[in-house]
């Protein structure tokens, strides 16, 4: 087991997906943590965009919502929601980062309802911008805590589509590039999620623990021995709440 708290490991694993100068459309929570960490380690040229209309954001404290004060404090530009979703639809956003209540083997995400839509066991918050990001970002990165209840064979409701053959004809983004947990990295080259890497401190068995479908490994399966010490140090300083 890693000595890191799971939330910190997830941020570190997620940050690895982001490259310098990436333009990222960032959801709240794990996505925001991972993006901030990347920006303050290996990707200082990254542009963080929140759906509230803020561009070039660099929150000093973790925002509770995309409309929270820390999202706009010190930001380079405050536009509006239309402006940033326009960029997304025009294909000008490199990466979208999302989390959700449920994910399935195709990278579909559910944040709408547990149970039947018409007769819900539990009504959730709905899409927000998640469906839009999943459809329109050039590259989609899904961040999920390793929590077996959240990994299901087929999500109860596809709020934010994962792999879908209709994407190309509809000129949508290419769909999930990676599903990252605090224990592993999954990719979707063949359609279904396959184990592409395990995160520091975890075996493949641990990475798949509780996942209710059979997961194969990619040909280039990797064991990631450690996170960059500088990234861990930055995380512990800048995202100290993940270590609490």
């Amino acid at each position, binding site marked *: 087991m890693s000595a890191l708290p799971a939330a910190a490991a997830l941020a570190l694993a997620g940050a690895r997906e982001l490259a310098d100068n990436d333009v990222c459309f960032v959801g709240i929570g794990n996505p925001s943590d991972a993006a901030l960490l990347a920006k303050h380690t290996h990707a200082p040229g990254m542009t963080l965009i929140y759906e509230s209309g803020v561009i070039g954001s660099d929150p000093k404290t973790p925002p*509770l919502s995309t409309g929270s004060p820390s999202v*706009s404090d010190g930001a380079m530009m405050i536009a509006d929601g239309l402006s940033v*979703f326009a960029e997304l639809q025009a294909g000008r956003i490199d990466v979208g980062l999302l989390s959700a209540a449920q994910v399935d083997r195709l990278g579909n995400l559910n944040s709408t309802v547990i149970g039947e839509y018409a007769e819900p066991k539990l*009504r959730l918050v*709905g899409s927000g*911008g998640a469906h839009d990001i999943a*459809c329109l970002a050039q590259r989609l990165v899904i961040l999920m805590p390793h929590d077996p209840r959240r990994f299901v064979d087929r999500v109860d409701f596809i709020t934010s589509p994962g792999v879908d053959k209709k994407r190309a004809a*509809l000129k949508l983004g290419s769909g999930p590039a990676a599903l990252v947990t605090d224990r592993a990295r999954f990719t979707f080259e063949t359609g279904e999620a396959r184990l592409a890497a395990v995160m520091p401190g975890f075996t493949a068995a641990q990475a798949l623990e509780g996942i209710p479908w059979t997961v194969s490994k990619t040909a280039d399966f990797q064991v990631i021995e450690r996170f960059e010490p500088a990234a861990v140090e930055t995380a512990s300083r800048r995202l100290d709440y993940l270590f609490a």
Partner: protein
Amino acid sequence: MADKAVSLSDAVARTVKDGDTVFIGGFGHAVPFALGHEILRQGFKNLTLCRSGTDILFDLMIAAGAVKKAVFGYLGNPGIGLGQAFRRAVKAGAIEYEDWTNFAMILRLHAARLGVPFLPARILQIGDMPNVLPDLKTLDCPYTGEQLTCIPALKPDVALIHAQHADREGNIKFYGIDGDTVEGALAADKIVVSVEHFIEPEQIAETPELTRIPAHRVTAVAEVPWGAHPSYVEGFYGRDDTHFYDYDKIAREDESLRQYLQKWVYDCPDRRTYLETVGAEKLSELKAHGSGREPR
């Protein structure tokens, strides 16, 4: 131009009707809680509430029984949890609702603002969302042949907005996070605004790019300091995150939520009483924890 400055209660009484479709401004920032509470105190019913990403004001208005239908992209307590009153109302079959996305809601308002019945978009073509939106149309682009979704216009009867400043004629100065606040206001037939502080028209003209709603579009404007608490107002006060965490616990049960409504809405005939309920200590703390930006 006419003086549109009125009291908070008149602002609501003169513009809202039972059954109206009401756009609620405030994407996290400058949520019009004072106007929303006033709607509840005046007992309006059968409202259709709409916006992209909601705040707990939406949930609270559902809890109070004022809402027939919710039309939204996200309905919850941002970053904290579910819309608890909404969750129970859905379970009980006591509310109608439409599940859009934040971008779709913005486009619906944008279409109304532009005066067209729909706008084409690439979203809502895959996944399960198109299946639960009744009567959502698609078309093939007459130029490119691409299949596009037709996002129908949504024209609210009334928009409720909170902003930093206005003059008494109704020119609204607003800055900080917008989301779809201005878009929703300009899409609506009537716009009702509460502001932190009235300023003179000459001061409005000093920063004309920050005038986001012009006077002739505004129906009524009321000066209501702290009118967005427990949300925040850029340049004035910070967000009362504790209040939102407390709401999450309180809203899990009908009875405690009823008591919350009594305390924060019905027992506060005016905003002064409300601020006494918040307490001077909390207000001074929020003032201190506002953003570093001064009023502009």
